[in-house]
C-alpha cells in the first residue's frame, strides 16, 4: 500500500516538476532538484523519514536496472555509427574518465575531504548503478556515491551547454560525448535537446565511461 502511494506521489511530483521546468526553463528548477526538494518538504510535513520514503519508493530506483539494460537498444540501432567512430569514442572517453577521476581526486585533496568521502566521490561522473558498484569495490559508501552522482548530473546539465558554447564545439559527436561523459544519464537527457545524433553519442559515452571506470576502479584496487 505504502509502496503504491509513494510511487504515485513521486511520479506526480516528477511530472509536475518537469512541466514547471519546461515552462520556465531555469536551471534551478531542474526536475532532479525541484522534485526531491518538494518531496523532502512533503515527507517532513508528514513525519516520514527519508529511509522510510526510500524503502517505499524502491520500485522506482529498481527501474534503473532495466533502464541500464535498455541502453543495448540504442547501441544496436547505431552499430554502424559506432563502427565508424570507434576510435574517436575510445580515445575521448579514455581521456574523459581519467581526467574525471584525477581532477576529482586532486580537488578533493585540495578541500581536505576525508578518505571515506574521497573514495565515494571518485566514480561520480558515471551512471548510478555502476558508480555504486565501483564505489563498493574501492571501499567507498555507495549511498554517498549516489548523492555525488546526482549532484554531478544536475551540475553537468547546467554547465554542459555553457562549456559547449564557450569552446564553440560544433560537431554532434563532440557535444554528445562531452555530455554523456560529464553527466551520465542527465547529460544524455540534455543531449536530446540538441538532436538525435548528439543523444546517440551521449548514450554511447555514458556506457563506455561506465565500462572504463570499472576498469580503472579494478586497477586502483589491485595496485593500492
Amino acid at each position, binding site marked *: 500500500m505504502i509502496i503504491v502511494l509513494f510511487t504515485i506521489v513521486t511520479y506526480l511530483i*516528477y511530472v509536475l516538476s518537469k512541466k514547471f521546468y519546461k515552462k520556465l526553463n531555469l536551471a534551478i528548477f531542474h526536475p532532479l532538484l525541484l522534485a526531491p526538494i518538494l518531496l523532502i518538504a512533503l515527507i517532513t510535513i508528514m513525519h516520514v523519514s527519508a529511509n522510510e520514503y526510500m524503502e517505499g*519508493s524502491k520500485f522506482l530506483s529498481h*527501474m534503473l536496472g532495466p533502464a541500464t539494460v535498455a541502453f543495448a537498444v540504442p547501441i544496436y540501432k547505431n552499430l554502424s555509427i559506432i563502427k565508424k567512430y570507434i576510435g574517436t569514442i575510445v580515445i575521448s572517453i579514455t581521456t574523459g574518465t581519467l581526467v574525471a577521476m584525477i581532477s576529482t581526486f586532486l580537488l*578533493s585533496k585540495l578541500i581536505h575531504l576525508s578518505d571515506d568521502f574521497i573514495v565515494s566521490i571518485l566514480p561520480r561522473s558515471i551512471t548510478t548503478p555502476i558508480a555504486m558498484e565501483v564505489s563498493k569495490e574501492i571501499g567507498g559508501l555507495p549511498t554517498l556515491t549516489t548523492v555525488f552522482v546526482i549532484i554531478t548530473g544536475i551540475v553537468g546539465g547546467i554547465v554542459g551547454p555553457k562549456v559547449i558554447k564557450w569552446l564553440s564545439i560544433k560537431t554532434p559527436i563532440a557535444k554528445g560525448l*562531452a555530455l554523456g561523459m560529464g553527466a551520465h544519464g542527465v547529460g544524455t537527457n540534455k543531449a536530446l535537446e540538441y538532436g538525435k545524433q548528439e543523444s546517440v553519442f551521449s548514450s554511447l559515452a555514458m556506457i563506455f565511461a561506465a565500462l572504463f571506470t570499472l576498469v580503472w576502479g579494478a586497477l586502483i584496487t589491485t595496485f593500492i
Partner: protein
Amino acid sequence: MKIIKVILQICFLHVFLILGAVLKYFIPLPIPASMFGLFVLFVALCCNVIKLEWVDQGAKWLMAELLLFFIPSAVGIINYQEIFSLQGLAIVFLIVISTMIVMGITALTAEKISAKKKGESH
C-alpha cells in the same frame, strides 16, 4: 494500448536483467548485473534471437524517464548532514570545476579527432 505494450516490454527487459544476474554469479568480475544484462540483450539483438520491436518501446520509455528513477535516491541526501555545511558547498564547487574540465577536455578531444579525420578524407 501503447501503455500496455510499454509495460509488457519492460517486464520482458527484466528477463535480461535476470540473465545478467546469472552471468554475474558465474563471472566474478566487479560488473553489475544490469551491465551484463545490457550485453546479453545486445548479443540477442545482433544474433536475431529477439526482434527489435519486442523491446523498442519499453526501452525508449525507460530511457526518456531516466530522471524519475534517480529521485528516490536524491531524497536520501537529507541523511548526509555534512552536505548541508561549508564542506558541502566546497564539494559542489569541486564538482562544478571538475565537470567543466571533464566536459571541456572530452569535447575538445573528440572535436580535434573529427577535424583530423575530415581533413584526411578530403
